């Protein structure tokens, strides 16, 4: 017999539950609901996926099928500050790969990883859409444009 998986309890906020309720019977709702779940937890924890599967009565495999297909969904918890480096073409041509190296050296983590103190995570993203500011780095709502490598330590220090 299959072993019962110990699932940790997870609580959805009232707003999230209400959101799911309004979407529950709309066709093609899964991606919208997962977006809302990620908005709440900043990633989609396994337990939350379990819960969505239960509420919507869809197989967990289908949910993971969708979660792993789309880059936007995260399965691991990001750091307190998530650093995004734009790797759109304009940023790439203007040296975004150099910025990535600099960040990796400074934080001691590679792309997609979180620092030990959970303060920073770091990822590259595809085009944030302000190519006039290339190369661009985003932390939270703050956008830093026309960057050079030597500006990176100062920016990170602001968040430490």
């Amino acid at each position, binding site marked *: 017999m299959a072993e019962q998986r110990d699932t940790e309890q997870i609580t959805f906020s009232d707003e999230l539950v209400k959101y799911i309720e309004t979407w529950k019977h709309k*066709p*093609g*709702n*899964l*991606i*919208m609901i*997962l*977006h809302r779940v990620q908005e709440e937890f900043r990633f989609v924890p396994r337990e939350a996926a379990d819960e969505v599967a239960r509420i919507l009565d869809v197989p967990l495999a289908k949910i993971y*099928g*969708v979660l792993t*297909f*789309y*880059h*936007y*969904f995260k399965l691991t918890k990001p750091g307190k500050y998530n650093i995004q480096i734009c*790797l*759109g*073409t*304009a940023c*790439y*041509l*203007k040296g975004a790969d*150099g910025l990535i*190296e600099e960040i990796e*050296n400074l934080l001691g983590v590679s792309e997609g990883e979180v620092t030990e103190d959970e303060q920073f995570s770091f990822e590259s*993203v*595809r*085009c*944030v*859409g*302000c*190519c*006039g*500011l*290339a190369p*661009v780095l985003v932390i939270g709502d703050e*956008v830093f*444009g026309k960057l050079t*490598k030597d500006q990176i330590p100062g920016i990170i220090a602001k968040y430490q």
Partner: protein
Amino acid sequence: MAFTNYILVCGGTGCESAKADQIYQNLLSAANAEGVHETVQIVKTGCFGFCEQGPIVKILPEDSFYVQVKPEDSEEIIKEHIVKGREVKRLLYDKSESKKHARVEDIQFYQKQFRIVLRNCGFINPENIDEYIARDGYAALEKVLFEMSSDAVIEELKKSGLRGRGGAGFPTWLKWNFTKQVDSEQKYIVCNADEGDPGAYMDRSTLEGDPHSILEAMAIAGFTCGADTGYIYIRAEYPLAIGRLKIAMEQARAYGLLGENILGSEFSFDIEIRLGAGAFVCGEETALLASLEGNRGMPWPRPPFPAVKGLWDKPTVINNVETWANVPMVILKGGEWFTQIGTEDSKGTKVFALTGKIRNSGLVEVPMGTTLREIIYDIGGGIANDKDFKAVQTGGPSGGMITKDYLDTPIDYKHLQGLGSMMGSGGMIVMDEDDCIVDVTKFYLGFTVDESCGKCSPCRVGGRTLYNTLDRITKGEGTMEDIDKMRSCGYAMQKASLCGLGQTAPNPIMSSLKYFEKEYLAHIKDRSCPSGRCKELISYFILADKCIGCTACARKCPVSAITGERRKIHLINQDLCIKCGICYEVCKFDAVYVG
């Protein structure tokens, strides 16, 4: 009291990122403080297009064009310009150094542009439906509902020659007509706003600057084809555009322009927003529909085409944002008017996101048939930092690279395709002498490999094979056979892939092999990268005759690979060097040489 001045603050993403909202807030509070808030109206508009010079603030009626404005400039703008009527000279766009350009019409960036799609961007407040209506907004919908039959709408579109702006350029009227002719109780209208092309932001700017134009166009299609439901599928990465769309939809509903019995007619139509989740392949229409249905965004073979059997198997009209934005104008001004703009087989205008090594990055809209040279040199101001032009890439990862020899090619569907590139969605990326073509091609392939959905093997396996080959070449491990292998592999992908992503993914390779074969050969035969970009193939040296021993490089070297005493010639230890290039950047005497 009537307004005597209008301040337009650019609220596009580029300017917002550079604190345009703070400028807007500061202007408001300064106007209050100076007691002029009743005579000056301050509006946050959509993108002005001149992103290189952002944040942009324009003041009417003087038409003063302020660039690179900072939040702390707000007070001066109010105190000097609004209160005393004196332009803040230092903020005016100054291109030639000697001559101060003040008016928009004087700025070369705008001279060859012609705005249909971006007609309202930078003019109206996108969060206020009245401003859209004041510029003939929803007049086309009204005309369609009360003066036109659905056949007449199709006829007008046919006359206009409007073709899809998202990629392949399929005639819009034909698509609509297919759906119109199918007998079905339920049909759908879909707006493709999943702009995933790296380095392109035309659709985002249109949605941010003029969201009502899209709603109006979709309603027109709903009436014409017999659909009552529309979906806008938009990237979740575009929060500003999503927010403005939501506001626009609410306002349109409140005005009876969306919802039941629009404008008192029999016609009902409403729109819902659905978010994408970062999958480039979802720009392909069948993959987008799969995603709308809540599934993995994997394409399906066509036929059947979505126009006949689309969302939940129902007939579905799916057009790209830019195509939609053209529709109200075609209806209002007539198909005949539209045909006067553009070339024989490509009517109207095209919006491009001009970026890369160009002096004036930004959003430009030009009549079809404008040459690449006009866009790059006249509008874009040429190559930044006085470097030499090397190539321009249109169509993003699906497009090809175009060389200097073809700069006078008029831009339209036919000519771009003839050059092995494509219109694509409208990214236009300029490269200079410092960019390595092989490296950029690898960048594009890396993107398409990442974004391949994996359903069909030509794309899944072919893309990976091409990427790996390019990777070896950039590391100096390529062989001459690789060239032929890449060509045949690319050809197979073009022919056998299931959807547009796989069919066009080899375009960067095929076009660069055609026009820049020499550069590939340099990597393979000479094991060198002429642009000094591929790390494995370059070394940094210090030129003895130029080094003055300032120690700047040695102090900055992260791995202490540079030795030398003050005022003595320095030396780089090649075994330690990680080729980060910092020494090259910091040397003020051009003493560091890349070879």
